[in-house]
């Protein structure tokens, strides 16, 4: 519906700005090693999450005001905004536990890029649900999937840090080099590896739940819980990759760098499952069209 002037869209603009500022400050923190910069960046990330939450609630209210009582998870725009929210939630929960602020410089860009894409490129109009999506399963399915995706995003960001750090250490360069100086704010490889593993331990059961709720819904709506539709298949591919990651932890020769690469490949597959399937392949989940 053209010509909708939504207040929620404006709130999402502020959210995007907050994520941008937070991201820049996290990068500045790595460069300057000034702890208060990292603190401010974290506070702004929390404010961004608050705005993102408010925006999502507002959008729900705006839909309701138009007479559509539906969860604000009905199209690509809403899902991307929710993805941004999920990434921030998982990231900030991990920050509460680990307080490794340099991680923000590698996770905030993911949230920022997605929010920017939503704000600049995607159609933010509120439209009522088509019959296929008129189900409570939609909410359960989308929330579980996206919490899983978000945890994988954090894991991938941390894995990139891990690889940078390990490669620098392998080069034998000490902290006297400029890059070595930047790495000073990076957590140790042990902690990075731990965060990577913990994030996937959150993401994997969530993805499993997302696939199961999706199957339950498909069975209820279409009469078959699994039809090897490209979206389903890609979610299973993602599941296989992270299952491989989890088993790699117990296998000599598969820890460290290989695990980090698996985590990054897993996130790439996640993004393909989320967007690539809709934009490049044909199937049942055509909300991205």
């Amino acid at each position, binding site marked *: 519906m053209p010509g909708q002037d939504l207040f929620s869209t404006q709130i999402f603009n502020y959210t995007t700005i907050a994520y941008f500022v937070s991201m820049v400050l996290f990068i500045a923190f790595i460069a300057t090693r000034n702890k208060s910069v990292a603190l401010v960046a974290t506070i702004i990330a929390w404010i961004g999450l608050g705005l993102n939450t408010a925006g999502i609630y507002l959008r729900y209210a705006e839909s309701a005001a138009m007479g559509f009582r539906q969860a604000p998870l009905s199209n690509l725009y809403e899902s991307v905004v929710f993805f941004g929210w999920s990434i921030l939630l998982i990231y900030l929960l991990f920050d509460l536990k680990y307080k490794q602020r340099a991680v923000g410089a590698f996770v905030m860009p993911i949230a920022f890029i997605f929010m920017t894409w939503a704000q600049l490129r995607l159609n933010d109009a509120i439209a009522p649900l088509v*019959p296929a999506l008129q189900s409570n399963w939609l909410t359960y399915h989308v929330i579980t999937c996206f919490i899983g995706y978000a945890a994988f995003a954090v894991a991938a960001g941390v894995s990139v840090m891990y690889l940078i750090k390990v490669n620098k250490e392998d080069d034998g360069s000490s902290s006297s080099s400029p890059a070595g100086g930047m790495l000073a704010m990076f957590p140790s490889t042990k902690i990075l590896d731990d965060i990577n593993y913990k994030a996937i331990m959150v993401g994997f059961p969530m993805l499993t739940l997302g696939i199961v709720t999706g199957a339950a819904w498909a069975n*209820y709506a279409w009469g078959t819980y699994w039809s090897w539709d490209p979206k389903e298949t890609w979610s299973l591919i993602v599941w*296989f990759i992270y299952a491989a990651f989890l088993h790699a932890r*117990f296998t000599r020769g*598969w820890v460290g760098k290989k695990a980090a690469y698996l985590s990054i490949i897993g996130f790439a597959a996640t993004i393909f499952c989320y967007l690539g399937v809709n934009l490049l392949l044909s199937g049942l989940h055509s909300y991205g069209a």
Partner: protein
Amino acid sequence: MSAQNRTFGTALWDFFCSLKLTIALLIILSITSIIGTVIQQGRTPEQYLQVYSERTYQLFETLNFFDMYNSWWFLSLLGLFSINLIACSIKRFPRVWKTVYEPVLVPSDSLYKTFSNIEEMVVAESQAQVREKIVSQLSSKFAAPVVTQEGEKTHLFAQKGGYSRFGVYVTHLSILIILAGAMIGSIFGFKAYVNIVEGTETNTVWARGGGGDIDLGFTVRADSFTVEFYEGTSRPKLYQTLVTVIDNGEVVKDRRPVIVNDPLKYKGIVFYQSSYGPAGDPTFGFRIRNRATDEVAEITVRAGQRVPLPGGGSFRVADFTPNYQAFGPAARVEVFPPDGARPRSFVVLQAFPDFDMQRGGEHIFSMTNFGQRYFTGLQVAKDPGVWVVWIGCTLLIVGSIVAFCLSHRRIWVTIQPVGQKTGVKIGGSAHRNQAAFSIFFDDLKKGLKDELKG
């Protein structure tokens, strides 16, 4: 069995028990699964030949790429994966069982060395007093310990959350249950579809993939089909078929609305609203007023049928649409004047009965009725394995949450005389979430110190 055979057997067993095989299989499964998402599955040869060359088509056909998820090689991969899963579990399960139910009650010094949480202290109280205090502390803060006496030494062992070690086996078992459920479904169930014209009935459905007719054993009638759109848009709001089920001459479901996301179930067979389409030409009811005489005629015509107009000439519906730019049904009417001049053509919308007045024609047309019969497309499925799959899914989630979120925590204490005093050694380990356990352990340690020294 010769020694060589035994070596081969052992080698094979080791191969199937290997975690490297698991990782390799998971990676192979994920890579091969991509094929079926890029090449559309289950199309006709004609459709493929429009996309691929003859040679490519032959190659893909030989490799089963057009129905890869049911191909022998993909199913073999899944089979190998299942064997690997079973073998790994069989190999590791007894050791884990022993760890939890036959724990080491007499810890050696070397065992203590493996713990990252350890504390040693020497206190003045007697061994019996110390023992009593530690037992009560452990019982209230952790779990009641098992006490083992070994000469002068007293050993305490307490554990919590031992069952969490079995989460991973529940997860593995659940995957096998899901695969079994899928197998039951594909052997004893069917997937079919049927198109029923409004007002008609059927007792057979068509198997998908060309398996022929399936007799339902009862009759299904589509009483009516409706499609609704959101006001002012062409965005669909509702697809609904009223379905009546007649079994043995008796109506068992009467005009039950079947909509997307709300199927109808009868005798284990489920009907889902899936598609619809027009059945035959529609009929149109027109009220036609003669501008000059004010004479009004009600005429019903089929699309394309040429009908005389009162007062001379004739007309027909040349074209129509059930939803013209979100305004509802519209018909393009052609009026043939009595003098044989060229027909005049104009559009009549059902939603605007007075609209045609402005045309200034001899006859003013309003559409009073648009009668389109539809057929409804229903998916029909029977899957007796679905409950097995849901049990598997539930176990999969419970199992993975237990495996990932809960941890098996164990505490050992050794109390022994050190000269006139009493030496206490405490060690603890958690198989997951060590950080949280460390905090708990430090807290426990502090409590014990206060208790023993205070």
